[in-house]
Structures are given as structure tokens and as C-alpha cells.
């Protein structure tokens, strides 16, 4: 019944035996000890369980572990490089773009995907891009501002 799947997790090759009904979020948290994807609703409403699968944010509470066979999975632990936080992480930190922090991993992954797809989004595009990630603390304004700031800065760098 169990199937061995192979995938990369934050750049490292992994393989694990999974049952066909096993949920990706549970596998990551309970079996691989990756705790940054959180369970806020367990039904696709909140986005705290988001992970990047081949560069797209997907809700790991709605995915089966077998679906990531062969894929590249990134969680927030995998965003930084050489011990440095990613520009989005840094700006979120500097701009107080999170409070309790529970939504932050999912939110930053969504923002990462958004900027990868659309490096210079408008304010409305940022709002749309983040609409699937709930945050009860910040009122979103500082989050939207932080994403726009990163996009502006990287634009200047070109």
C-alpha cells in the first residue's frame, strides 16, 4: 500500500514511504519535523499551511503527500541563502509586517511566488496575490507595503 516518494525539500534530496491517504501537511510536520507550515483550518481557507511546490504555493492541508513525488518543495526554512534571510523576510522584519507571526511563513511564501511571477505588481495585484492567506493581526497594510517595497528595491537594482 505504501509508496516511496522522492522529492527535494529545501534543496535536499529526500525519500519517504507514504500511505496513499497521507496529507502533505501532516507528513511535513509530523514525520519530517518541518513545523513552519501551520494548520489554521484544515480545509483550504487560511493559507497558513502553504508550501512552494515547484515554485507555486499550494495548500499542503489539501494535498496528498504522494502528489509531491519528483517535485521541489520549499518551506520558509529554505528561503534564506547562506544564513541570510531573503529580501522579503528582511523587509517583513523591518516593517513590522507580522505580529503573532503565525501566518508569516505562508504569507511570505505566497509573496515570494507573487514576486517571482510578477516582479513589479501594482498594489491591487499584491492584494489579490495575498488574498488566500489570512492574517488576523496586521490588517494587511504593512504586509502589502512590505511586498511593494521589496519589488521596488529589486527594480532599482536592475
Amino acid at each position, binding site marked *: 500500500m505504501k509508496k516511496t516518494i522522492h522529492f527535494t525539500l529545501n534543496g535536499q534530496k529526500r525519500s519517504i514511504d507514504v500511505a496513499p491517504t497521507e496529507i502533505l501537511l501532516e507528513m511535513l*510536520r509530523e514525520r519530517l*519535523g518541518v*513545523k*513552519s507550515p*501551520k*494548520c*489554521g*483550518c*484544515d*480545509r483550504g*481557507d*487560511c493559507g*497558513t499551511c502553504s508550501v512552494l511546490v515547484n515554485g507555486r504555493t499550494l495548500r499542503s492541508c489539501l494535498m496528498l503527500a504522494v502528489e509531491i513525488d519528483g517535485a521541489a518543495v520549499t*518551506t*520558509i*526554512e529554505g528561503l*534564506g541563502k547562506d544564513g541570510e*534571510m531573503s529580501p522579503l*523576510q528582511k523587509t*517583513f*522584519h*523591518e*516593517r*513590522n509586517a*507580522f*505580529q*503573532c*507571526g*503565525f*501566518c*508569516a*511563513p505562508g504569507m*511570505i511564501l505566497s509573496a515570494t511566488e507573487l514576486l517571482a511571477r510578477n516582479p513589479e505588481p501594482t498594489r491591487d495585484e*499584491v*492584494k*489579490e496575490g*495575498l*488574498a*488566500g*492567506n*489570512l*492574517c*488576523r*493581526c*496586521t*490588517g*494587511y*497594510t*504593512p*504586509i*502589502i507595503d512590505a511586498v511593494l517595497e521589496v519589488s521596488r528595491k529589486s527594480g532599482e537594482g536592475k
Partner: protein
Amino acid sequence: MADHKYIGKSAVRVDGKVKITGAAQYVDDLEFGPGLLYAAIVESPHAYARIKKIDPSAALKLEGVVKVVTGKEFPYRFGLYMHDRYVFAQDHARFVGEQVAAVIARTPELAKKAAKLVKVDYEVLKPVLDVETALRDGAPLIHPELGKYQHVPWFFPEKDTNIAHFRKVRKGEPLKGFEDADEVFEDTYTVPRYAHCSIETHGAVGLFDHSRRLTVWAASQSPHTQRHLFAEALAPLGITHNDVRVIAPFVGGGFGGKAGVSMEILAASLATTVQGSPVKVLWSRAQEFYNTYQRQGVVAKMRLGVKKDGTITALEQKLYWDAGAYVEYGANVVNAAGLSATGPYNIPNVHIDSVCVYTNLPPGGPYRGFGYSEFLFGLESLFNEVAKKLGLDPVEFRRKNAIREGDILNYGGKMNPSGLHECIEKVAREIDWGKKRVSSDPKKAIGKGFSLFWKAPAMPPNAASTAFLKFNEDASINILVSAMEIGQGFLTVMAQIAAEVLGVPPTKIRVETPDTDRNPYEWQTVASHITWSTGNAVKNAALDAREQILKTVSRALDRKVESLYVEDEKVKSREDAAFALPLRDFVINGIMMKDGTFRGGPVVGRGMFMPEFASALSDPKTSQGGKPNVHYTVGASAIEIEVDRETGKIRIPKVVLGVDCGKVLNPELLKGQVTGGMLQGLATVLYEEMRFDDKGRLLNANFTDYKIPTAMDVPDEIVPIFVEHEQPDGPFGARGVGEHTMIPAAPIIANAIEDALGVRIKSMPITAEKIALALKEAAALRKEEK
């Protein structure tokens, strides 16, 4: 004003990196090893029922099920302010979703499966689902034993009724006040129940080890209160405070929901039945909606007496709160709101009844705003109506009656320093009050709304805070406190306070979440009081440490203590510019003397704060005589909306919130409170609402049906205005502000809608459908009149 190096600056969060890298651990992220057991709850499907029999046999047959626990094992009553609840329902279940039993099993799936197999026989009773029914003569009694319940001295339950607490406030001569009025206006406003919707659900893990030590890890705003309540509730098992330890990791949002004790008692109690094994209880999103504290609904009946010139002569407020099945915490919301239900106005004659009513709905409890948002909706809506009828500008009407420093409060004390009038001016200017904008789109109407707000911390008069502060070899510091970082930035602000006193940058100061064994006492992280209260304790601890440092240097190096001060991690001298002794040289090891002996040693500061002037004792018939509130934080808020004349859909170009929270300690964090609190408040008035069916079942226990705001729902512009009239007893002049930012949201919207469309909506939420309907009705009425 003194020049500050760290206070008033936007220091970056000390809990920033840990959260933004995914390293922060919340309760469900902690590891408990292979021995961890999981509990699933058997819940009452009925709003009111007698439990005839519980048969666990089928559940117990499943392999991997360890235990089924029912109310029989824990026949104890407990609660925060009133002992009216149980660990598990005893002979009666009083709301849909109430815990009747629990199954403990080796996996969560198994526990859930087995919980479905527990057979409970109920005799279904007719539930009481609203306050009117509950208050009717002959209504079924939800707590027939009410007269016997233990409670704090400032509660006044009425036995053999469903009234759990009745707060009466009488100031001046209300009768005469109404006689003196030129006109009297009255109306009724209603507010439904709301859910906190922290993105992290409640969770707790209990371990009762073989030495009979009970440790609970909980997503908590109140670790010490939890320790106290666990010890009280479980005292019959021989458990004492000394046996209980509560560890609170990071919390994924609180908003009052994780204050006091709700489901955590289950983890604590269940742990005692499986000694040696940790047990996890984790709420699902649905349980988070129906079995934690909810914000209580209220029916507010008001009468206002006014002179023609707009002077208020008297106010009568009758607030009937739907407090739910257990009110051990919620009754204090009723109490606090009752004491302050005039809003920030100087009203000479006041008659307030704030009535806490039992119903067969889930327990009410603390929610950001603690009753103030609820009464303010009606009050500030009525004020607008009154101003309109008197032909006065609504802001002018408010200005005329707004409270000032030294004015007499409802319970007799004096109003603290207040920049309310300055807030009114600044907010009115920012929203361009008095200038009517017309939309270029004929389908859209533009309106503006205005409201004042206030709130005081609602806390027992002896709610205290303490702090330990210890230096490390490199002159970095650890601060130990037991208030919680629930997102507001508390840890950072505590670091700033200590930094200011000790001349050590906040980046070298660690403040972490508490463990009741290690960290000193704190009452709870609620009431917007910890910046003020714990801030004072931390400041005192830092002053204590500073004194030790300066005395050591004085003693060892023979310098006058008065000449010494700390700056940039050094002790310096006002008399000798060349003297600069780095703290790291001696804060652990002391200072070596010529003979090789040492003076000083590890520096450890301690600080405590308790508002010794507060008292909850007063005349129960009038509430006069005590000093229940330590201070009020006040402000004004305004909004501009653009509303579709047909669909009622609203867009918000601009919101302004002006608040006087005393000295602003960290502007960036405070702005975060404004943007977050305001959106949370706007959602309560525009679309959120808990909807129950006629059997008391919650119809929208998920984020699809109970919609909370997304990034798409943000106002175009939120302008925070900070007015700083310092609080004399606050750390560097600060007072509380966390809750206030959502309190005026409902009335500013309601008033703006009326301004735009001429319809007054008297029940929350004011959804687009409600507006569209009201517009239709108004049009029909106009036709009839013609």
C-alpha cells in the same frame, strides 16, 4: 519632555527573526516524543439537555484507546470570577458543542473515531436562546444552583433567575436629568456574537508525571491565571500551585480568546487520568468557533436627555448581554461595560443597568474591546441621530459633551489626563469634516462618520505584574516576565524600557515567553494593561539593576554615586569625562580590587507593580465609591465611505484614528495596532456575525461561512494620529491602547452610511444586503407619503 534614546523609537521586534524564519514554536509545534496521547471530545449535540447515561464500552473496545473520561471523574465547579463551570458537563449540557466526555487514544484519528462510538443518552430540554426569553417570568433556569455559586465581591447574581450579574450605575439624579431635558430620545440597538478567529486555534498539552507534577503547555494569554485555576479546580486530587507548571510558547493570535481558562482545563484534567503520558488537546477550526469564549451579543436600550443647545442632561443605558451557558469570565465584560457605558462623555446624570444573562449558547468571554465596542455602536449611533434632530453638527455635539481631565466619572472618580479634545480636532481636520464630497459616479453616495471612544483596563484591583532582569557576561540582558507576546510587540517594548534605563540596546536584550516555574508572576495579558503594568515592573527591575551597578562602581572605585550614570553599555561620570567603565567588565564578575578581592557580582534586578490605588468595592446600588478603573485611554475616529446606492456595497477610501495613549513607546508597533485593530473592527460591522439556528447550533463554524477580512478588504488609507498626554503612573508616560483601535469601527461606519444614504441601521452587522433592504424600505415609505 526628556530626551530618550530607545523610548519612542521604532525598535525592530525582538521576536522578529524567530518568527520570520519559521523558527518560532507554537504549542502544536512542540515535540513530546512517542508517548504522546491524543484526546478527542464527545460533544453535546443539544443546546440544553439532561445527560441520562454515558456508555463508553464500544469506544473502549478499539485497540489503541487508552481511556474514556466523563464528568464523573471531575465533579468540581470552578471559574475565574464566578465558579459556574465544570471540566466536563455534569448532569446537564448547556450548549451545543459542550464537552461531555473525552477519549484518550494513541493517535488523533483513533481518538476521533472512538469519540463517535461513545453513546450518550440525553433528555432534550427546551433551550433558552436569547435574552428576552431568558428574562421572561417562568423561563427555564439554566443554572438553578446560581444562588450557591462562589464569585468575586463585585458581582451581583440574582438567584432563581437567569441573571448571573447585575451591574447598576447611578450618578447624579437621572430622573431630574430627564426632567431638565428639552428633549428625550430613545432607541434600541442590537449586536450579535463574534468570534476572535486567531489563525492559530487553541491547543494544550498536559503531562502529569510520575512524581505528580502537572505541566501544561498552552497557547495562552494567561499562564499564571491558568496555573491558579488548574490548582483550584484540581485541588480535590491533592494538586497544589506548587505542583502545577504552565509553559506558554508563542501564541498565534489572542484577542482575548486565549485569556482565562477555556479548553486548557481539559488538557490539565485529562493528564491526571493517564499519569506519565502527555496528552494533547488541539481544537479544530470548528471547535475554535463553538467551544471557546465568544464575544457576547447585546441588546442595548437607550434614552438620552438633551438641551436644545446639545448639552446632554441624562443618559439611561440598559444593556442585556447574551452571556451564554457559563459566565465565569463573561460576567466581567458585562461589569466593565456597565461602568463605562456613557462613552467618553461628561454626563451629569446617569442610569446604567448592565445585565449578564445566561442563555444556552456557547460561553461568552473576553474579546478585544471587552464590551466597549458593543455599547459604543448604539450610543454613538444615537448621538448622531440626536444631533441631527437638534440641527447640530455631530462633531460639534460631541465636542460639547466630551469628557475632560478632572471630570467626574460614572463611578465617582476623576478622569485622568486626556487629549480627547485634541484628538477630535485632529481627526476632524484629517477627514475634512464638514466638506461633502460627491462621487462622479451617480450610482455611488459618499458619506462620513465620526465617533469618540474610550476604554479602561478591566481588571481586579490587585492585578499585579513582576519582572526579573539578569545580566550576562557580555552585558547582554535577559528579562523574565510572564505577560505574553500575542503579536502586539510586548517583548520588544519591554526590551526598549530596560534599554532606556540601563543604556544597553534592545538588540542585546532577550525577553521570552513565560514558564510559571521560572518567570515571576503576572496576572494576565488582557485589558491593554501590560505595556503599562508590566512595563512599570520591568522599569522597576531595570532601576533596581542600575542602582546595583552604580553602587558597585561607587564602592569599588571610590566615586560618588550621584556622579555616575549609564550610557552606551558603560558606566560614566558627570565629573570625569574620561571615565567610562564597560558594563561587560563587571556585571557578572565584579570589580577586582588592588588586593585581588572582588566587589559586586552578577547583577539581577527585580521589579513589581501593583495599582495600590484601585478598588472594586462600591455601593452595589449605584457603583459609587470605588476606583475600579486605573485609567481610560480615549480617542476619536472618522471614516469616509463610498456606498453603492443599489447594492449597498461599501468601499472605504479613508479611515482616521486619533488616540491619546500617553507617551508612544514604539510608533511602528502602535501603527500595527491601528491597522490591525481597525480592520478587525470594520469586519464586525460590515460582515462578520455568528449565526445560530433555532436549536442553538452555530451555522458558520468555518472561514468559508464566517468570513474574516483578506488583503482585498483593506481600506485605501488608514491614518493613525497619536496625541501624547502622558499618563503620570505609566512607564515613561504610556497607557494602554491595544484594544482601542477596533472599538469605534462600528459607529463610524453606521454614521457614515446614514450620512451617505439617510438610512439608520440599528443592528450589526451592517451588511450590503441590509443596506439595500433599508434603502428599498425607505423608498417605499417615501412613495406612501406622497
